[in-house]
């Protein structure tokens, strides 16, 4: 099942050219671009691990793409996303975030139903991938 999180996730995967154009848009707005990765695709997993530091003071998307290439070399089998942080007063939050890399095979989620008092049902979603230990979820050793 294809994970849809952040911007553009209902579109086909962005090409590097398209990623670079989006990043350039962020940089021109003065946002700092971050690279984050994870192998736990649960929608409530907000805190992905960061690849290096947020990239402040960049002028051109080539710098971000250079880091992204590095990150893909190491974590190419996981989810990688770019997020753009706006530090201006009143915003101080992430303005744009989109997935730029995903595992080849995305097994999707299992839906668990718990019957509780009064025949109510509580739902839990668990990524099948998370059954395996971290780092080995998408075919990595």
């Amino acid at each position, binding site marked *: 099942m294809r994970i849809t999180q952040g911007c553009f996730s209902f579109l086909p995967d962005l090409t590097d050219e398209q990623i670079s154009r989006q990043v350039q848009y962020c940089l021109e707005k003065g946002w700092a671009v971050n690279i984050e990765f994870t192998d736990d695709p649960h929608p409530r997993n907000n805190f992905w691990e960061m690849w*290096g530091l947020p*990239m402040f003071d*960049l*002028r*051109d*998307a*080539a*710098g971000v793409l*250079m880091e992204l290439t590095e990150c893909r070399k190491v974590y190419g089998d996981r989810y990688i996303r770019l997020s753009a942080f706006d530090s201006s007063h009143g915003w101080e939050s992430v303005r744009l975030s989109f997935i730029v890399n995903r595992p080849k095979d995305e097994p999707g989620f299992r839906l668990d139903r718990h019957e509780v008092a009064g025949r109510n049902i509580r739902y839990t979603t668990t990524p099948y991938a998370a059954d395996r230990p971290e780092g080995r979820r998408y075919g990595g050793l």
Partner: protein
Amino acid sequence: MSMAATAHDVSEAAPTDQVDLRREFNEVGIGEVLDQLDRELVGLKPVKTRIREIASLLLIERIRKRMNLTSDVPTLHMSFTGNPGTGKTTVALRIASILHKLGFVRRGQVVSVTRDELVGQYIGHTAPKTKEILKKAMGGVLFIDEAYYLHRPDNERDYGQEAIEILLQVMESQREDLVVILAGYGDRMDKFFASNPGFRSRIAHHIDFPDYTDDELLAIAERMLRDINYKFSPDAREAFIRYIGLRKVQPLFSNARSIRNALDRIRLRQANRLVADLDSVLTADDIISLEASDVFASRVFLKASSGA
């Protein structure tokens, strides 16, 4: 006229087979930058000629691209050698703007760094630091001042080598994203290139900045004063000509930079002289003119007279 019209019509559809050179030249607006370079920088004849050559090459390269005559992205990395204060940084800024106008760098910013910003202090510190700077310079020009400090021949475990390797790699693989300019004193740069042959071969343009002559230094001084609304009185001008002659032979002379510092001190003395007489009424002319006595109070004359 008809020629220009044709060029315009055809430019919609690639490839073009006819280009109006003048129109192309005016369109990119480098003529303006080159004229500004001629106007604002005193002397530096060989440097200006070389920059004109490079600009012409790039203009032709641009046209060739439009005509689909493919050739490699030209290597644009440069090295500027010359004594301190000969205008290397200033020229680097102009080069960045020329490259930007011709579309060979996308943003045109100049990131000026020295060894401190590239090389870390402990293991594993250098690579992120160098990459950080490279990322900031992407789409523009990376200007490395006193580049030979990156290489410390006496210490083979120096982290500078790591920075050099990363630089070389990016200079080669991301030629279209970034232009690197190395700057430094002539003889030490030669040694640096001798011990790092990788750099020499990756740099297409070696530009040597000559020292300024006395006349040029005077012209620079007068230009600097005009910019900040001061002027020499005729006596002070004579005095300053003598000052230049004396200062040049003293150690640690750094061309235009020494001139700027000298002017700062002369302004200081002028202000002091004016303030010393609180009862006087000053005219605008008093405020803007520097007198011979302000120049003669310099230490340079003292040393010269005691030495003689």
